[in-house]
């Protein structure tokens, strides 16, 4: 049975201090407790193979990278830049007159001499070359480990280039060692985009319900599927942050009527800052899973409160759901009763539980790679989170009401009323929705992955490429939820169907049948007897 004992056994091999540290990052869901606290967003233990990446990965790799019309120059040695080249499957297409640089990887490829004598000159020239070859509207410069240490002032270089070329040039000091995971990089990227991009556009004529989608990176086309359905209902999408997003659109983000937040972790800073600065509210949504998609769509309509929008929403839900209902029933009948581990990202480990649940699969262990306590326990704990040295190093950007664009769209009374029914400016976290007795592990590492698989024997393991093969070698079907194993989209109704089909394929592949050779299980002669009849 799962419980505290399982945790103890999984932690058994650790020396005392590691034990204590890791224990605080785990818990067994107990509905009888009013609150359950989990340690998160703290340093990983050296030598324990964590799946976390670095600050640079979160900034350039996750948030900035998908902006397609921007030349993203990585200032640093070549490795980091190379490793983020086209690896996230954040898809993009370009419309006419639009530029798309996503297939490119730009680096200043710092050499030993640059480390010794400084790399500013090289960076300056690299920007010049980028402008000459690609003539982009905007350039980002992301710093990797050595840059801050050798004292390169990338912000000064950016400012100078901005003046010289008359385009937007932004610098991000997202050196790999900052913070404790990618999360710090998300924050730095959020700050930079807020400071430099959002609010600088003049906009165009939008329809009645202009919205932004935040924290959607269009992995495997997820964002496209979301946009398709939302547009069908009648929403006008101003910008998507940042999957298939662009600098050109992002500039106008302040003109939307509502911000939808999909991945809370990576983008909640922008959501909050926009709210403060422009008065736009944000609504937590989840388009992964049928029940959550339906709820999210209804909530958005409720926010705008227009009867015709509400009924159109119902209509689209019926229509879209109708298209996959039978298919989902079929797969559910084949997948029902299975158990899963899900360890990914800063929000997906929560989002996907709904989709799994819709298919009759129980998530018995879940956790985030780089989530914070609020992603587990809900935003109400934010005031209680003590800022440690690592968090303090990341700037908290202060924004003020924008004189020109700040709007009050709703009376405070109405807002409070609405907040009772829909998650406005609020995220409740993963824990509340998990079943009694399920296990939560923050920053799950290689050792624990193995131990928990051994102890709990799940049927499926959802994670990324780094731990995929560990699970597979242990005989447990594994699916990547970072890159979707080259499949997708998984969002909305259609996506749920594709996801179900992929799981079915993985669980039922005939390959699993042959794991044990026949000579290990008993007499084999019967199979080779000539004539078709068995002995």
């Amino acid at each position, binding site marked *: 049975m799962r419980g505290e004992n399982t945790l103890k056994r999984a932690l058994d091999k650790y020396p005392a201090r590691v034990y204590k540290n890791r224990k605080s990052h785990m818990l067994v869901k107990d509905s009888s407790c009013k609150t359950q606290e989990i340690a998160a967003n703290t340093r990983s233990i050296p030598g324990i193979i964590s799946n976390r990446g*670095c600050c640079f990965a979160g900034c350039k790799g996750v948030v900035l990278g998908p902006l397609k019309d921007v030349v993203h120059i990585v200032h*640093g040695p*070549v490795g980091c*830049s190379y490793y983020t080249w086209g690896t996230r499957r954040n898809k993009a297409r370009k419309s006419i007159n639009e530029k798309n640089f996503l297939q490119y990887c*730009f680096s200043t490829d710092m050499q030993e001499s640059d480390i010794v004598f400084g790399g500013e000159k090289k960076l300056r020239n690299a920007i010049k070359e980028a402008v000459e070859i690609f003539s982009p509207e905007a350039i980002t410069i992301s710093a990797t480990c050595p840059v801050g240490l050798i004292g390169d002032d990338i912000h000064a270089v950016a400012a100078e280039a901005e003046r010289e070329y008359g385009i937007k040039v932004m610098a991000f000091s997202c050196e790999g060692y900052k913070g404790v995971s990618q999360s710090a990089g998300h924050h730095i990227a959020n700050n930079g985009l807020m400071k430099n991009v959002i609010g600088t556009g003049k906009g165009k004529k939008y329809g009645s319900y202009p919205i932004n989608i935040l924290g959607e990176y269009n992995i495997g086309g997820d964002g496209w599927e979301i946009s398709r359905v939302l547009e069908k209902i009648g929403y006008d999408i101003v910008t998507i942050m940042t999957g298939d997003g662009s600098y050109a659109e992002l500039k106008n983000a302040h003109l939307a009527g509502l911000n939808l937040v999909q991945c809370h972790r990576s983008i909640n800073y922008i959501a909050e800052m926009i709210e403060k600065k422009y008065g736009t509210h944000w609504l937590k949504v989840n388009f992964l899973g049928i029940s959550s998609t339906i709820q999210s769509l209804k909530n958005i309509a409720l926010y705008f409160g227009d009867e015709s929008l509400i009924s159109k929403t119902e209509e689209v839900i019926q229509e879209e759901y109708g298209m996959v209902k039978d298919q989902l029933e079929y797969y559910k009948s084949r997948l029902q009763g299975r158990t899963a581990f899900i360890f990914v990202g800063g929000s997906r480990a929560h989002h996907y539980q709904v989709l799994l649940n819709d298919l009759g699969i129980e998530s018995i262990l879940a956790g985030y790679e780089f989530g914070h306590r609020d992603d587990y326990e809900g935003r109400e704990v934010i005031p209680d989170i003590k800022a440690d040295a690592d968090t303090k190093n990341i700037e908290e950007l202060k924004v003020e009401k924008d004189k020109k664009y700040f709007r009050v769209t709703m009376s405070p009374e109405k807002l409070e009323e609405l907040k009772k029914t829909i998650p406005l400016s609020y995220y409740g976290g993963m824990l509340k929705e998990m079943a009694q007795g399920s296990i939560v592990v923050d920053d799950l590492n290689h050792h624990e992955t*193995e131990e928990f698989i051994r102890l709990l024997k799940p049927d499926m393991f959802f994670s990324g*490429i780094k731990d995929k093969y560990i699970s597979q070698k242990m005989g447990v079907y594994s699916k990547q939820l970072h890159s979707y194993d080259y499949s997708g989209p998984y969002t909305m109704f259609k996506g749920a169907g594709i996801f179900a089909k992929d799981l079915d394929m993985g669980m039922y592949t005939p390959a699993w049948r042959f794991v044990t050779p026949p000579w290990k299980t008993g007499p084999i002669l019967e199979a080779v007897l000539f004539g078709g009849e068995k002995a």
Partner: protein
Amino acid sequence: MDRNYVNLTVNPCKMCMPMGMVAALKGISGSMVILHGSQGCSTYIRRHMATHYNEPVDIASSSLTEQGTVFGGSENLKKAIYNVIGLYEPSVIGIGTTCLAETIGEDTARMVKEMKTDPSLKSISLIPISTPGYAGTQFEGYFNALKAIVEDTAVITGKSRALNVIVPLLSPADIRHLKLILEMFGIEYIMLPDISDTLDAPYTREYKRIPKGGTALSSIARMPGAMATLEIGTTIPEKLSPGKFLKDKFGVPLYRCPLPMGIEGTDTLISLLAEFSGRKVPHMITEQRGRLMDSMIDSHKYNSEFSAAVYGEPELVLGILNICLENGIGLRLAATGCKSPLLKPAVENLEEKFKNNLSVMTDTDFEKIQKFVAGCHVDVLIGNSDGKWIEEKEGIPLVRIGFPIHDRIGGQRLLSICYEGTMRLLDEITNTYLSFKESTYRKRMYQKYFN
């Protein structure tokens, strides 16, 4: 080289040193790797290797944070070492540096030396390897690691009949094949490194944290007593050559031969092995050669019709060049992201022999490779999967070989050395051209005659 734009690298044709270091360490039995720096380096490299090999690739990190950059990272590194030992029970840990560690001037060699005084660490080899990402590519990182391992491990021992075989980064399938050939000759060998099982492990019921296989440290220790060293590769810089070290320090005779790709390259290797073993070339190998010969004659009528561009790590580039030239495939370009001063003269030698003029680009990127192939007639690209953008944009089919291959399955199982591998790769190259020709033939004919 002909680089108009020298400050901005666009689509790099290289990775960083720690990547190569990890690949080398994965070929050592019972090994683990710690990269001293921030977590990202380990995570990125794990991701890239796991995608290519479809195997777990575990790399620990000392997880340096901002504080570490101020106060130094020795505490983190220490913790990392003890934790790795506690959880993985390795017999050797390779400790590589990263850009971060090197920039803040971490003296890992000293730290490790200090740690070695702890009696509980006595049975474990801790090998510091300097691999700053900015000082070289994976190619240099790989040999740097091999040399460091040998320097650290080799001791004066009694003479043995063994042959040291030092190999560049090949596929696990290549290494398996090479071992088989050595065994056919009855040669006792020490293969360094040996990734044949570790990075392409058979499926078993039981999963092992550190996969079995790899070169045993005890074997490396005995390398100085070997009859000779055979270092495969002619572009390995002298100062990174483990073979050279064994020769200089222990007087082990050093033989170098090119990568056995192509019939001639393989002939060289096989003749050497025959000499070492004092045996006749085994019948099976002669037959393999015969079959390759047969296949070369079979496909020559197509091969001279088309031309190719090759890129990747210098050693592999040379090997592929050999295959192409021996088969009359027109070569336009040999390119590498490494600085590799030895590639150009090696290519010039071949050019003279085969009367084929081709361009050589070193320290280059895919942007420049693309410009080049777009500007001249190239039918087939040969190299790792990073060339897929050129394939897509220029419509030139790509034969995938080397590391990484991320958009196809089975890179770890590709056999492309010796007679057998040459035959497979040659067929693949020819067929790629044929399939391209077939699918575009009508269109091209139409354009030629009716437009």
